[in-house]
């Protein structure tokens, strides 16, 4: 492999990793901070992608679609938390798994009823519809670079939110000791509702921003779900930095696995996960407390 190919593959790996981070960050928030195992997280990704498709066809502009989509997904998160998940905080994980698995089926069926089972493409916004030539044969789509930049910016924002704001402090406190926080007079239920809505919105946003390059198709959520759990588990449950680091690691491992050992491309990330968990069973960045 010459140096150009190597660098481009590196770029591919980082770009894929950043997108994974965006989806997985919502999962690590809900899973790590609220202690809810949410198998429907992939469905939120799918819902986002389909919203991008339908809203972009209606409004003719992907960015308008994304803004409307974010509002809708925050509402969806609030309603789901209020109606379903808030009843499960004190129950065990199996019941959460059952509920969220049920939600996967419900969302798939709704998707089938509302939009149908066809594959759809989402048009790129005109200003990003070009590529930068890197070598005589290969160009790099600008939109992918834009996606990476957005993912990085969001990682920074999330870090600031969790570690540098008052709300973040409440979230972290709630994760350590729910009863203590509420006895101090803070409305912990509201905090949880916001965190859940944020998690849903992050997944849906990932689906929306990825829609032009991934296209939208039935079952897209389940594909993403598994790799997201890998990211969250490797990164250390509940850790934003852990998720970012693990997502980049998975992105690179997957990319170079496909190129260097194509026969084992399907298992490289899982081997990596097994190795890391043997070394650090709590994941790379275990949350303190």
């Amino acid at each position: 492999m010459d140096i150009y190919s190597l660098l481009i593959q590196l770029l591919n790996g980082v770009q894929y990793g950043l997108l994974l981070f965006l989806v997985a960050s919502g999962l690590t928030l809900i899973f790590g901070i609220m202690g809810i195992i949410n198998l429907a997280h992939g469905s939120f990704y799918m819902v986002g992608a389909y919203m991008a498709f339908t809203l972009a066809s209606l409004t003719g502009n992907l960015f308008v679609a994304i803004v409307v989509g974010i509002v809708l997904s925050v509402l969806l998160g609030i309603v789901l938390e209020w109606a379903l998940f808030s009843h499960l905080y004190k129950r065990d994980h199996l019941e959460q798994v059952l509920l969220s698995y049920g939600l996967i089926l419900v969302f798939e069926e709704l998707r089938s009823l509302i939009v149908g089972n066809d594959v759809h493409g989402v048009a790129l916004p005109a200003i990003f519809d070009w590529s930068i030539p890197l070598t005589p044969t290969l160009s790099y789509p600008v939109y992918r670079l834009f996606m990476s930049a957005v993912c990085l910016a969001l990682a920074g924002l999330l870090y600031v939110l969790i570690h540098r704001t008052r709300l973040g402090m409440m979230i972290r406190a709630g994760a350590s000791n729910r009863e203590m926080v509420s006895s101090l007079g803070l409305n912990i239920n509201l905090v949880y509702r916001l965190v859940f809505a944020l998690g849903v919105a992050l997944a849906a946003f990932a689906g929306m921003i990825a829609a032009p390059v991934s296209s939208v198709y039935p079952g897209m959520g389940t594909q993403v779900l598994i790799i997201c759990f890998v990211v969250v588990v490797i990164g250390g449950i509940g850790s934003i930095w852990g998720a970012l680091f693990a997502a980049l690691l998975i992105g690179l491992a997957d990319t170079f696995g496909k190129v260097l050992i194509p026969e084992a491309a399907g298992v490289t990330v899982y081997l990596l996960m097994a190795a890391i968990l043997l070394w650090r069973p709590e994941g790379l960045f275990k949350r303190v407390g």
Partner: protein
Amino acid sequence: MEATRNTLRRIGAIAAVGFAAASLLLPDGDALAQQGKVKIGLMLPYTGTYAALGTAITNGFKLAIDENGGKLGGRDIEYFTVDDESDPAKAPDNANKLIKRDQVDVLVGTVHSGVALAMSKVARDNNTLLIIPNAGADEITGPLCAANVFRTSFSNSQMGIAMGKVMAEQKKKTAVTLTWKYAAGDESVGGFKESFEAGGGKVIKELSLPFPQVEFQSYLTEIAALKPDVVYVFFAGGGAVKFVKDYAAAGLNKTIPLVGAGFLTDGTLEAQGEAAQGLLTTLHYGDGLNNPKNNAFRAAYMKAFKSEPDVYAVQGYDAAQLLIVGVNAVKGDMGKRAELVAAMGAAKLDSPRGSLALNRGHNPIHDIYLRKVEGKENKVIGIAVKNLTDPPRGCKL
């Protein structure tokens, strides 16, 4: 049928005294077989990803039967329908239900190769007539071939064989292949490699990724570094849409032509848009195929179902056409299996796709067309291989 008749006679013998009078009123077994309805078991996907394909096949099948007066060999028809859900785990049960409970005379199905493999096993075990209207797994008409198993669609390697030949004729020297790592993809790519290398080309790298992953960026980088004369791929559905768009976004389509099996651009052009324009694919059907049978078929299908027929509808239509030839040859007596199967095996069908015959393994011999994407259509621009027949490797018929 034979078993039923024997059972009936045995019960009849035991109860002969008591029911002597009543039994006089019943027609005997042979007359029943002649006059009763022909039972057809349709085992196809009616829900899930392939639901549209299952419906198109069913529509095509019923259209051909209706054009035949709604009868088979002079007998009326009764349909038994099962949704196979494209789930191989449920396939043996579903097939057995149709065969044992509903006692169908012929089984028709299905789309998914895994399900079709299970069906072909059940059909062989029970010696039930089976017609496959889509699933392309090579082995069904290869090592697993059987006298009572027929296919009216295609086998996976056929499209690859056709495209490999065309690319070799275009004096392409090197190729890279890319597919999902599963049977259909491997067989399609295998066919391409076989004929491309026989024509003097060389496949310099065979890439594959696990089904159904769609992150192609690293493979595109690899292809750009290898700089082959042509890239042959096997993808369908969502993967096909994404690959074609990624390939164009990477700018590879300007220097390295992308070609593939027809599924790459079938039913996906709406989503692929500009990125798919000009792509060459091979399939046994396409848009703008101008023969009298096809024109009549398209008009009749539009009239009956208010939608445009596709390649799957054609395959279902031909499944029924094949059955009609067989049942007519024995004048509706499904008990004459050897003659029925011989007639089907020797059938020369006038299909909307062109002429259709079957090889020794009961796999289609048909023209494979070279098609070019123009707008929202896969325009037929020529015949890639005339009367393509893939060797029925390992078939002992």
